[in-house]
């Protein structure tokens, strides 16, 4: 454990995010309230009202599209900018998300995972954030409130190093409104870890004016896309470095893009994103006692996608049960597609099966994971899956 005394607070996931914004010395927050994200920006507004933060400008806007537009303007001008949203709000931002990444602006956003309507829902589901896969945003999935706090701080550092925006994703209600102990870092130590932003260019130099969001003809557009991809590749390295540095400074290590839990001698592993994996880890402990040799592989960063780490994991296991709290209609769970794709050109190709779980906030319990383990054990023993995609909860 690193030699410092953490500030221990009992906070919701949303308050953890708001405290991280405060400690990161964010300069501009532009946001529109949407359940279950609202309490993040309420808390930030409270910090401002109480005079607890300096130099933080809050911009109340009339929609999420405007929230992202204002964040882009602030970030382009050199400010450290933050916003937060959920589901339909994120979808409304979609067009602007491309502007943020294309213009290489290190905005950090918290998306509180919420199911897309209809039917109208405010509960946990990862389809909203995963549907933004191709917008050029990095995506970090938090398992608990501590990871929400840590994730926001790391996201700023990583984003500002590679000049790409980053999304920190937490589960609706399961994290956003549930209180848990979070070890916060004293301000001066956060300042050492996260110095003020150094923007890519200086928009205030009037002697050398230039265009932002310039027109790119077919002669130039392609090169900028390539550069964006190179930045994502660089981000993988930076994520590991910053995650390692975070571990050295504050005692919580994030140097791997996938968090492996008891996978060393596992026959098969559960793979998934976010808070779901907390339940899975508990289930793994119980299943181990019952004689199952299982482990958990929590994918921390979905973009950039940890292709190499998944290939490494695949070498040592016979099966991967992917737990998708999301769906790409006409295909399958999104993480399943990505993980399978990562392995196609590698030699190690364990059996893979996709379990669709928890859509629209349906509870996923330890007992569910036990049933999935029984099913997956049979799949591995038989050497082929019964079905590739299993709508696990379906009322039959």
């Amino acid at each position, binding site marked *: 454990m690193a030699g410092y005394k953490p500030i221990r607070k009992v906070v919701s996931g949303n308050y953890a995010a708001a405290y991280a914004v405060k400690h990161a010395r964010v300069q501009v927050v532009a946001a529109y309230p949407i359940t279950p994200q609202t309490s993040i920006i309420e808390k930030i507004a409270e910090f401002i009202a109480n005079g607890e933060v300096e130099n933080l400008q809050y911009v109340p806007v009339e929609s999420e599209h405007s929230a992202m537009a204002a964040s882009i303007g602030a970030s382009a001008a050199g400010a450290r900018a933050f916003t937060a949203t959920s589901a339909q709000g994120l979808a409304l931002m979609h067009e602007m998300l491309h502007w943020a990444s294309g213009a290489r602006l290190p905005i950090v956003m918290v998306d509180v995972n919420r199911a897309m309507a209809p039917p109208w829902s405010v509960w946990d589901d990862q389809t909203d954030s995963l549907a933004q896969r191709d917008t050029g945003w990095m995506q970090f999935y938090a398992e608990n409130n501590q990871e929400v706090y840590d994730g926001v701080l790391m996201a700023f550092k990583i984003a500002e190093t590679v000049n790409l925006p980053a999304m920190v994703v937490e589960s609706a209600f399961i994290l956003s409104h549930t209180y848990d102990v979070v070890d916060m870092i004293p301000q001066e130590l956060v300042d050492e870890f996260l110095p003020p932003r150094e923007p890519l260019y200086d928009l205030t130099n009037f002697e050398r004016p230039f265009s932002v*969001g310039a027109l790119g003809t077919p002669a*130039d557009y392609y090169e900028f896309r390539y550069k964006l991809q190179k930045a994502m590749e660089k981000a993988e390295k930076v994520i590991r470095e910053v995650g390692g540095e975070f571990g050295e400074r504050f005692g919580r290590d994030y140097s791997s893009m996938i968090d492996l839990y008891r996978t060393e001698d596992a026959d098969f592993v559960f793979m998934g994103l976010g808070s779901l994996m907390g339940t899975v880890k508990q289930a793994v402990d119980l299943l181990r006692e019952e004689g199952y040799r299982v482990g958990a592989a929590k994918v921390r960063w979905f973009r950039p996608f940890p292709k190499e780490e998944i290939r490494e994991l695949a070498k040592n296991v016979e099966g991967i049960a992917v737990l998708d709290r999301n769906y790409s209609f006409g295909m399958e769970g999104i993480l399943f597609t990505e993980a399978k794709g990562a392995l196609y050109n590698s030699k190690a190709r364990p059996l893979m099966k996709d379990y669709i779980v928890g859509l629209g906030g349906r509870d996923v319990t330890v007992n569910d994971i036990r049933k999935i383990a029984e099913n997956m054990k049979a799949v591995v023993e038989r050497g082929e899956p019964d079905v590739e995609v299993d709508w696990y909860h379906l009322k039959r």
Partner: protein
Amino acid sequence: MNTLFGEKKEGATKIVPKSVDEYPEAPITLGTTLSNFTGDWRTFMPVIDDDKCVKCYICWKFCPEPAIYIREDGYVGVDYDYCKGCGICANECPVNAITMEKEEK
């Protein structure tokens, strides 16, 4: 910082990158007004009659670009590199000192 700056007047050139490494990190300054003159959209050009001008600067205030500037002698001039010939200045001039003339190119 690698950016695609062009310089006004002196060459007014845009740097054309030859390889991906020569591009700036972010897509900025592919077309800045320092190198991208907008005056060639014009069909009619404003011509100012100094004898009629009363230096009220209404044209200067109304020009949307701004292509009208105040000269050292106090009269107004037009920067034709950026004047799009919209005619607002001529329309607003209270003493009809500005006429819009068809431009021969």
